[in-house]
C-alpha cells in the first residue's frame, strides 16, 4: 500500500503534527491502477490534483475525497487519501455531513456533469448556497460516459447520442451560471489539456474559504470525442481562450484582442483602430456577481471561452457559523446536562 510509503511524521489520532518531510505526488497515488479509458481527460485531472495536494501543507490524512457515480466519481479510488465513493448525485450531501462534524478536514467532492447537474442538482445548489467548505471538482464532458453515451444536462441542443438519435431537444445548463446563481463564493473553470492552468485553479480552490466550484472541461474520447477541440486546438486556442486574471485586462489572442463593456454586453474587440488597452475591461473576481455572470455567459463563436477564476469572494462559512452558534448557546446555557434535560419541564414525584 502506498500508505506504507508515507514519509511524514505521524501525529495522534486526527491531530497530526505538521509533516516533517514534504509530501510528493507519489504520496497521493493509490495502489489501484486507474481504469479510465486510455486517452481520457480524467487522467490529467488526477495528475494535477496529485501535484497540487502535496503543496498545500495539509497532512495527507486530513484530506477526504467524496464522489458520486460516473467515470469521474472513481477518482477517490485512485488517490491514497481517505475517500468515499457515494451514490449517484449525493456526494455534496455526504460531504456536508462530514464537514459539519469534522471541520478540520479538507473535504473535496469529485463529480461530473450528470452527477452534479442532473441527479444531484438539488444537492449541489444547496451546498453552494450554504457555503459549505467543500471543494467541488466537476468534470464536464457533456455526455454520460459510464452508462455508455447518453446526452447529459450540459450536452448542446441537437446533440445526437444514444438516447437522442434525432438530436437533443433540451437546452443545456451553463454550470457556472448555475453555481453563481446558487451563491457560490468561488467559481472557476479550467481545461483537462491545460495542466498548469488547472493546477493554479485547483490550488486557488483549495485555499478558498467556503464552497469552491470548479468546472473542468474534460474530453471523453470514447463517447464525445473532441467536444472542446474548437477551443483547445493549438492553432485556435489563443483566439478562443480568454484567461481571467484578477486585476488584469481581459485580453486574448496574444493581447491583440480584448473584451470591453458595451452597455450591459461584453463585446470582443480587436485592439487598434481607436480601441486601446484602456478600453478593455479589467477583471475583478471580487466584484458584483453580475460581472462574473457576464463572463460566464460568454462562449464561442461570438466570444472566446473564459477560463480561470470567475469569482472569489468571502462570505460566512457554513461550519464556522454553526460552530459560533453552538459556542454562543454553550456560553448562554452552559454545557448541557443530560440529567437536567431529562428532568426538564413539569415533573412530579410519586412516593
Amino acid at each position, binding site marked *: 500500500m502506498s*500508505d506504507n510509503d*508515507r514519509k*511524514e511524521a*505521524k*501525529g495522534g*489520532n*486526527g491531530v497530526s503534527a505538521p509533516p516533517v518531510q514534504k509530501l510528493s505526488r507519489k504520496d497521493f497515488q493509490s495502489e*489501484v491502477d486507474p481504469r479510465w479509458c486510455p486517452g481520457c481527460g480524467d487522467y490529467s485531472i488526477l495528475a494535477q490534483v496529485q501535484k497540487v495536494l502535496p503543496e498545500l501543507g495539509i*497532512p*495527507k*490524512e*486530513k484530506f*477526504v475525497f*467524496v*464522489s458520486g*457515480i460516473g467515470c469521474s466519481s472513481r477518482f*477517490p*479510488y485512485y488517490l491514497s*487519501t*481517505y*475517500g*468515499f*465513493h*457515494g*451514490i449517484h448525485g*449525493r456526494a455534496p*450531501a*455526504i460531504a*456536508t*455531513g*462530514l464537514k*459539519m*462534524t*469534522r471541520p478540520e*478536514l479538507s473535504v473535496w467532492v469529485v463529480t461530473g456533469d450528470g452527477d452534479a447537474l442532473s441527479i444531484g442538482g*438539488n*444537492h449541489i*445548489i*444547496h451546498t453552494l448556497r450554504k457555503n459549505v467548505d467543500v471543494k467541488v471538482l466537476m468534470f464536464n464532458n457533456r455526455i454520460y460516459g459510464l452508462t455508455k453515451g447518453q446526452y447529459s444536462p450540459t450536452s448542446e441542443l441537437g446533440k445526437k447520442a444514444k438516447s437522442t438519435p434525432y438530436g437533443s431537444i433540451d437546452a443545456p445548463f451553463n454550470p457556472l451560471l448555475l453555481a453563481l446563481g446558487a451563491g457560490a463564493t468561488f467559481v472557476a473553470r479550467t481545461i483537462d489539456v491545460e495542466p498548469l492552468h488547472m493546477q493554479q485553479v485547483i490550488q486557488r480552490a483549495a485555499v478558498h474559504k467556503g464552497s469552491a466550484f470548479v468546472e473542468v472541461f474534460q474530453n471523453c474520447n470514447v463517447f464525445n470525442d473532441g467536444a472542446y477541440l474548437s477551443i483547445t486546438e493549438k492553432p485556435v486556442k489563443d483566439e478562443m481562450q480568454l484567461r481571467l486574471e484578477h486585476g488584469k485586462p481581459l485580453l486574448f489572442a496574444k493581447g491583440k484582442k480584448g473584451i470591453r463593456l458595451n452597455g450591459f454586453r461584453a463585446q470582443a474587440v480587436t485592439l487598434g483602430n481607436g480601441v486601446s488597452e484602456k478600453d478593455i475591461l479589467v477583471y475583478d473576481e471580487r466584484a458584483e456577481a453580475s460581472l462574473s455572470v457576464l463572463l460566464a455567459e460568454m462562449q464561442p463563436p461570438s466570444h472566446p471561452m473564459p477560463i480561470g477564476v470567475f469569482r472569489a469572494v468571502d462570505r460566512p462559512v457554513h461550519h464556522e457559523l*454553526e460552530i459560533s*452558534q*453552538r459556542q454562543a448557546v*454553550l456560553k448562554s*446555557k*452552559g*454545557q*448541557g446536562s*443530560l*440529567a437536567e*434535560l*431529562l*428532568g*426538564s*419541564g*413539569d*415533573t*412530579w*414525584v*410519586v*412516593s
Partner: protein
Amino acid sequence: MTASKVPVRKGRVVKRELFGIAPGPEGARENMQTQRPAEGSQSRPKKIEEVSTVTIRFAGDSGDGMQLTGSEFTRASAVAGNDLQTFPDYPAEIRAPAGTVPGVSGFQLQFSSQPVYTSGDQPDVLVAMNPAALKSNLPDLVPGGLLIINTGAFNEINLGKAGYPSNPLTDDSLSKYRTHLIDITQLTELALKDSGLSSKEVGRAKNMFALGLMLFMYGRPTEPTQRYLREKFGHKPEILSGNEKALMAGFHFAETAEMFAATYRVRKAAIAPGRYRNVSGNESVALGIIAATKLSGLQGFLGSYPITPASEILHELSRHKNFDFSTFQAEDEIAAMCAAIGAAFGGSLSFTTTSGPGMALKQEAIGLAVMTELPVVIVNVQRGGPSTGLPTKTEQADLLQAVYGRNGECPVPVLAPNSPSDCFEVILEASRLAIRYMTPVIVLTDGYIANGQEPWLIPDVSKLEPFPVKFRTEPKGYQVYQRDPSSLARDWVRPGTPGLEHRVGGLEKDFLSGMVSYDPHNHEKMVRVRAEKVARVAQSYQPTEVHGDSSGDLLVIAWGSTYGAVYQAAENVRAKGRSISHVHLRYIHPLPGDLGAIIKRFKRVVVPEMNLGQLLKVIREATLVDAKGIHKVQGKPFKVAELTARFEECF
C-alpha cells in the same frame, strides 16, 4: 343562534341565559363509574364523585387551540398523579376551512387511578367547541356521556358548514347524553371586555375558558397552566393576562354557575415511585438521541428534512446545541440520510428522522450505509400511506419497506418501541446495536406514539450504561473489511487518523482489503457475511417476554404502538377464562431467536396490526406457522373493545 334561544328542558332552572343543561338518560355509565348528577340540583356542586378512569376528548376548529387545552389538562392530570395516555388528532392542513368537518382538531386523553395502556376507546366526556366538532365526534361519545357544547359557535353559518340540516341543540339528537350548553364564546368575551385585546385575540382565549371549566370539574389546580402561560406569554403581558383571565373565568364559572351537580376526582394511580414527567414519542426519541450521544461519548449529528409527523424531533434536537450535537435541516430526505452517512464516516453518532414517504426516498442511501458498514440510526415515524396518504394519521404499514426495502440483498436491523416513553429505551438500544455491529438500524414509531403522551419515570442518568466507542488508530495490519469474530463488525476509523487512509463506497469490495472487487465468489461471500452480521444482532437481545401463560390456545403477536390496546384486550379475554397470551415484539428484524419455540407452544397465532398483514407475512415466512391477521387501516389506533371482540372470535 345565541344560547338564549336554546330551549331548556324539563323546567331546569337556568341561572343565566348563557348556558343550559340538558338532562341525560337514566342509568349510570359503566366506564366512567359515576352517578348522573342529581336532578335539579341548584346548590353549588358540593358532591364530589370518585371515578377510576375517565376519557375526555376536546374537539374544536383547528384554530380553536384544542391541542393546547388538551395538553394542559394532561399536564394537570399528570401532576395530580394519574396514570394517563393521550392522543391528539388534528387535520393535515394548517388551517383547513374554518368551521368545516375536515378542519376539526381533537385531543383525547384517558386518565386513571389504575394503569392506563391506551388513550381510551371512546370518550366519556366530549367538549365540542363548534358544530363541526360536535358532528364529527359525537358518534364516539359513550351513551350517557357528558357533553359540553360551546353554543356561541352554533350559528346558521357554522351549522351549514358542518352540514347540519337542523340545529342539533334544538332537536332530539342530544337526548342520549348529559348535555351542558354553555356560550363559551360570549362568556370569554365578557371576561375579557376590558382587557384591551382585539376581538380576534379574545376569540383565541376561549380554549382557556374551556380548560378552566374542565380543570374545576376534575378538581385540578390551575397553577401548572398559569405557569405555562407565564413562560409562553411572559413577553406579551396583555395576552398573558387575557389568557389567565379566561382560564380563571372558566374555572370560577364552573364553580359558581351551579351547573355541574357534581365534580369528579380521579385518585392517584399506584405507579412506581420516582420523579415523573409527561413525554410524547417524538420528545422521547429526541431525548434518547441526546442520551445515546452522551453515552457513546461521540459527537452527535442529525440530518433531517421536515415531514409530518416527525418534524418535532428535529425541532427538539435543534434546541440542544450545548450538547455537542449538530442538527442539519437538509435540502431533501436523501440529503438528510447522506449527510448522516457522511457524519458517520467522520466518526459521529448519526441519526436521521422521517416518515413513510421520506423513508422511501432514503432507501438507496440506507443501502450505501449497509455497504460501507457505517452506523446510522434511522427513525421512521409511520403515517398513513401510500404516497402522501394520511400525513397526520397513524399506521404501521412501513414494516415491509423497513425490513425488505432497498435494492439487492440489504438486511438492516429493525426495532419498534411500544409506547411514547419506550422510544427513549429503543433509541439507546438502536444506537448501541448500530455501533456494535457497524450497521444502519431502523426504528419504527408511528403517529400514535409520536404525538401521544404518557407519564415517564425519568431515568437515573447514572444508571444508564455508557457504550464508549473505540476507533481504530493502529495502522499496522489494517484491512478495511477485517471483522470482529463475534459481531462481524469492521473497524471504525476516523478520517484524520494517520496511516489508515482508505476508501469505502457503494461498489462491492474485497472481503478483506476493501478494494473494489467484481469477483463472483467474493460478492456472494460479502452478501452472506452482511446477512450473517445482521442475523447476529439477535444475539444481543433479551429473552422474549410472554404476557400470560407461556403455552396455551391463542398467542397474540403484535408490535409497536398497538401495545396498550392489545395488552388490555388480551387481559380482558383472559379474565373471561380464555387461554390467551401476548408477545409484543421490539425486534422486527432479525426476529428474536426464541420466538419460534414460543409459537410452537400455542395452538393458534393471531397478529393484529394497523396494516394488511405485514408482520404477519414476516412471521409466517420465518416460522411457517399458519398465523392469522387482524387488520385495521383507518388512520386510527385499535380500540380495546374491537380487539377484545376479535380475540374472542378466535376461540
